[in-house]
């Protein structure tokens, strides 16, 4: 396989004489609806970071014994935890819907010798997988499987 080209391989030896202004951000860019949704998508990072550490606490408690485990579950009935979990659920659904919409657009034109499936099929498969995994997870956690 040929080595990849240098990113500036096609650049002129000397910069052109055209003077260009440094890039500037438009005034109030963050208030535009498109940018607001984009920033909200980024901001879900805080919820995910907190969720990751919360899952760490849950796993740690599971390994620490019955008392620690029961304490964590009792904490989850606190209104603050309920509010955080509901906010997290909204954030997760928002991320899923936005990401699933972007996913087909991010596919390369070819994957080896194959072309990726059409966008509606990728979209449908992602939603089907999401619903199936969620149902399976809920069934297991509620004792419907492996009881």
């Amino acid at each position, binding site marked *: 396989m040929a080595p990849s080209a240098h990113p500036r391989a096609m650049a002129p030896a000397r910069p052109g004489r055209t003077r260009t202004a440094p890039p500037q951000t438009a005034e109030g860019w*963050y208030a535009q609806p498109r940018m607001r949704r984009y*920033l909200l*998508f*980024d*901001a*879900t*990072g*805080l*919820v*995910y*970071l*907190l*969720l*990751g*550490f919360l*899952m*760490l606490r849950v*796993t*740690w408690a*599971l*390994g*620490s*014994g*019955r008392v620690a*485990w*029961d304490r964590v*579950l009792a904490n*989850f*009935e606190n209104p603050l*935890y*309920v509010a955080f*979990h*509901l906010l*997290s*659920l909204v954030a*997760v*659904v928002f*991320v*899923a819907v936005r*990401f699933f919409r972007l996913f087909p657009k991010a596919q390369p034109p070819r994957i080896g010798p194959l072309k990726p499936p059409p966008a509606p099929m990728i979209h449908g498969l992602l939603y089907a*997988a*999401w619903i199936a*995994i*969620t*149902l*399976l*997870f*809920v069934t*297991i*956690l*509620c*004792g419907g499987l*492996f*009881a």
Partner: protein
Amino acid sequence: MKQLLLKLEPVIWLLFGQGILVGTMLLTGWLLVVGLALPLGLLPAGALDHTRALELGSNAIGRLVLLALIALPLWKGAHHLRSLSIDFGGGARDAAVATLLYGLASLGSLLALVAIARL
């Protein structure tokens, strides 16, 4: 530090992407059960009893799922918060912010391995 971050970019993007995809798919069920069913008293008795939860979490698949549920959201969160910081004019402080956030995600991922080994 910037050079190191550029070198690590593919790994970070892999963890970030999987954080969105796998993390989201796994977290939805967990949040429905713990965020809604548990406080509303809808869970069958003993469903999340310690013995049963330990049995579920301590087999090979359970450990893998728990590792994904901890580490992947941490990397998704860290990368998105870094992106948010850059969007709000944080280009100059990016190396420090990235080090802090990826450091937190790395620490959390290491602790996840320890937590899973304790099961």
